[in-house]
């Protein structure tokens, strides 16, 4: 077996392990939406999130899936689609200067509801001289996406849209908590 084939086998094992250990089963889309609303409201009360309660309500929406045109597929959206990372598209702002948005797709056709796709992206404050917005994106692509064949359905982008590495087994609520409480933006960057 060549090293590349061996890497592909490793990728399959990592993906299986990562997806198998991620909490993707939920009671239903409405419960998950309420959990997210509670998490964001608490972060606002704790002065972690800049958005006030009414702003959170304007940014957090739910409805039928915009990507799967079948009954029983739902979506939760936090902020607007923002491919070019511009500040004029609605998003959640944090007091530490970071800003983020997300979208989650839920399959409610089975006995228990399953999260089958999401994207979460947090952008960090730009340093002097930086021309591009630094970011971290964590994606779970929908089943049968191209990246599923490459065993990279569940991946993260470390500040680069073209680079993908396997994601740790974090559920949407865990990622949201990490955005809110787990990323420390130091006043002085570490010396390189």
């Amino acid at each position: 077996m060549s090293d590349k084939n061996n890497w592909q086998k490793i990728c399959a094992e990592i993906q299986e392990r990562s997806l198998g250990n991620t909490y993707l089963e939920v009671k239903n889309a409405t419960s998950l939406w309420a959990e997210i609303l509670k998490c964001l409201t608490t972060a606002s009360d704790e002065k972690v999130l800049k958005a006030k309660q009414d702003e959170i309500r304007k940014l957090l929406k739910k409805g039928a899936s915009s990507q799967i045109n079948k009954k029983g597929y739902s979506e939760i959206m936090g902020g607007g689609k923002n491919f070019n990372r511009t500040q004029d598209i609605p998003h959640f702002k944090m007091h530490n200067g970071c800003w983020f948005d997300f979208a989650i797709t839920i399959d409610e056709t089975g006995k228990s509801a399953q999260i089958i796709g999401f994207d979460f992206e947090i952008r960090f404050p730009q340093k002097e001289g930086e021309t591009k917005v630094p970011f971290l994106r964590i994606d779970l692509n929908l089943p049968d996406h191209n990246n599923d064949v490459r065993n990279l359905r569940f991946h993260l982008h470390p500040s680069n849209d073209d680079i993908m590495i396997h994601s740790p087994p974090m559920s949407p609520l865990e990622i949201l908590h990490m955005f809110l409480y787990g990323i420390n933006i130091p006043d002085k960057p570490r010396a390189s």
Partner: protein
Amino acid sequence: MDNLLSFLGVNNKLSSVDELLQRIGSRPDGNIWMIIVVNIDDIESVVLDLQDTIVIFSECNTGTISGESGARDLINQISKALEEYLLLWQLESWDSNEWKIFDALRSRLDKENKGGLLVISEQANSLMIHNAPNFVSWLGARIYYLQKGAEILSDEECDRRLAALQEWTGKTNDEVIALAENRQLPTDPEYGEWLILLNRGDLLERQK
């Protein structure tokens, strides 16, 4: 009575489900009761949604109690309930007398727990206001009218998502539809979303 309602500020106070949940989450400790007035046809679906979500905001055991067997039975069920926060519904069959009984027994709502929420129709709300004045006074301004669907994506927000997709790809709606009709649509899920926002989800089946 209208002066009392005006004083309490209960007229036309709208609340969406998400706002109501935030209110429940930020209520002070103690025996706090609220009313949400809902279109009679929506009561069941609203109660189902609230059963799944209130517990997240009340942060305690939450139970649902039906009032279909009358005010005395409801109050007895409340007395026996083990849950700390209660969702009361099916009060639409109550006449003036049932509301008067409820009003007279209102002290039994105070179990030194966290209170609860009544989901009622406009008609039941009117009967309650006129026949349970002590309970209404106790509620204070906590009577809300459900603003339905505020948490659902609006047409304006759909348009904004379409504009973002157009800017991202540099393509027009017509170009994307043409690509889909010719089975040349890229596999990125955003193109699927684009077709659905254009009400052309039927073209997605053709891509397989």
